[in-house]
């Protein structure tokens, strides 16, 4: 490790692995290290099952759980949007060849007292009991508007006279199409995937694009807009790690990271034990630089929760559990000092729970963008149910670190070209 590198990447979470892959592909000499002995950091899928129990300070699982190595338990609840940024990254980098996916069976909303399936296509929308007959027509008009919407193209706004992308709020758009409260709730949370209602008073462009992403994703593989990789989300960082390795990246796991070394306010290397690996840049997740990140505080509320509760359910059919078992993750953005009580409504929807693991994670953002000191820090994974913000962060970090957008044409994976 006593060598000189262009970039050292710390942590093998998904963001760091994508960045590492992109840097290696771009011809940078990359050293990629992790303090854990497994790949994936926060976005790992823990296997075998006893490792998960150990992680949560529990005695080993009993025999009823089946073979413990059949389990791959995610630490964060997320799915891929079929037409989203991560799928595009997977395709353009060729990493998709390492993975197999399943389309998630369906998505449902629970409001008041009933569970309703989110319509997967027009036919389902027409037969859905979420809306009355006239509401369905209004909703259809709204969907067509969202489908056509483009930020820069006024001709795509003609469904709503007077529309102004900078000023028209989402609630004004809903009002124009005369949608009722139920439809608005359902559209904002189950289609646009907002976690609370603050979007209503913001300019409509973002929400309209989210709705378009949802319906484009639906058109891709059917049933639901969500994809999930066999063997768990932990397969994603591993795929990008392999990309980095075959383009020359060096991997070291189980390596204590003692210090990021600075000289004259700029990064010059990383110290592990007695060794120092020299480099021009360091990329890392917030856990490696606790003194250079700030914790995001969400204001606490006593009544009327603002944030949605997400329940995700995967099973042995996704190769993440032994036969017959299901893994549910109930998650939310914590708003009170009694976090477990906040997700009770979600827990109550599940069948009998054999073992519950409760975890709270802080959300960190970097203090600086890295362009001054050459230390580029990713943000913690947020509470969204998909990877869209994850990819935006990665692309932004890559741009800050290299001064360029990533050039996908550099990924060749082609033996013939390499051999000449």
């Amino acid at each position: 490790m006593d060598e000189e590198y262009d970039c050292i990447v710390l942590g093998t979470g998904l963001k760091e692995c994508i960045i590492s892959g992109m840097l290696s592909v771009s011809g940078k000499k990359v050293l990629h290290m992790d303090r854990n002995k497994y790949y994936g950091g926060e976005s790992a899928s823990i296997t075998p099952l006893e490792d998960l129990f150990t992680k949560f300070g529990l005695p080993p699982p009993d025999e009823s759980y089946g073979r413990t190595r059949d389990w791959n338990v995610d630490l964060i609840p997320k799915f891929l949007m079929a037409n989203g940024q991560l799928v595009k990254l997977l395709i353009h980098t060729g990493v998709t060849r390492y993975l197999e996916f399943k389309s998630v069976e369906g998505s449902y909303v629970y409001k008041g007292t009933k569970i309703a399936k989110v319509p997967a296509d027009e036919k389902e929308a027409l037969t859905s009991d979420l809306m009355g007959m006239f509401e369905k027509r209004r909703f259809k008009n709204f969907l067509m508007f969202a489908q056509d919407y483009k930020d820069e193209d006024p001709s795509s706004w003609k469904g709503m006279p007077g529309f102004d992308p900078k000023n028209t709020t989402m609630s004004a758009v809903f009002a124009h199409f005369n949608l009722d409260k139920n439809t608005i709730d359902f559209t904002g949370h189950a289609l646009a995937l907002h976690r609370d209602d603050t979007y209503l008073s913001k300019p409509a462009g973002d929400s309209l694009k989210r709705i378009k992403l949802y319906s484009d994703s639906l058109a891709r593989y059917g049933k639901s807009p969500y994809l999930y990789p066999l063997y768990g989300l932990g397969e994603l960082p591993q795929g990008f790690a392999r990309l980095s390795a075959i383009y020359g990246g060096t991997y070291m796991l189980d390596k204590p990271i003692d210090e990021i070394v600075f000289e004259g306010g700029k990064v010059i290397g990383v110290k592990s034990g007695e060794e120092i690996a020299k480099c021009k840049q360091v990329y890392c997740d917030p856990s490696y630089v606790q003194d250079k990140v700030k914790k995001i505080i969400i204001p606490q509320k006593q009544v009327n929760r603002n944030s949605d509760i997400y329940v995700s359910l995967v099973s042995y059919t996704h190769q993440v559990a032994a036969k017959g078992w299901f893994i549910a993750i109930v998650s939310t953005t914590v708003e009170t000092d009694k976090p477990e009580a906040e997700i009770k409504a979600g827990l109550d929807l599940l069948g009998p729970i054999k073992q519950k693991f409760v975890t709270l994670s802080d959300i960190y953002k970097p203090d600086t963008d890295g362009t001054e000191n050459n230390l580029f820090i990713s943000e913690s994974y947020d509470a969204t149910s998909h990877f869209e913000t994850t990819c935006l962060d990665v692309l932004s970090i890559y741009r800050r670190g290299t001064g360029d957008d990533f050039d996908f044409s550099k990924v060749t994976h082609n033996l013939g070209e390499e051999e000449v």
Partner: protein
Amino acid sequence: MASVKVPEQKVILCGEYGVGKTSLFRRFATNTFVTSTDRKSTLGLDHYEKVYMTDEHQGVKLQLWDTGGMERVASITSSYYKFAEAAILVFSLDSPDSFNILSQHLLDIVTYAENAKIFLCGNKYDLKNQIHVTDADMETFCEQCHNLISGTYKTSCKTGQGVEEMFIDISKQLGEANRSRKELDSLNKNSFKITPPEGEPEDSCIC
């Protein structure tokens, strides 16, 4: 568009750093050999596919995967093993150490690719007077593995000796196994690979 599971047979190379896995890969892919001194980096090498005819009508497409050098200082990702139909345990005939550690690699294979057929390959057979791993050693190893090993081979990537024969034999064995497993496979048809949608230009910007 979703495409159903592809019929290729994924074959992975396992073993210590420096035993000749990438050399086997090169022989397989381009039938060439590069000596260590003018070996270029293996950048961008991922996997390579080749069809072997097992009889007049039946072919098997071997898809050989190299480690990408990840085993040098870290561990190989468990993903590498996933969906593998076969694994070749490679060691160097002149290095007892590379042979003795194979039980460790074997453990990884049965853990992460439990349905894979496993083959044993002693490489660097051309180093005639430095061979320190005997046929008897290899036999003992196979016995100790409770006959998990479906075939043993001795190869020289330098001369090419035994390499093609090994892959032909492996493809035969996989072809036979494949026929009997076709029905089982249909159970797992609803997973898929994602591929670029037709009509979308390859270089479209994702930003």
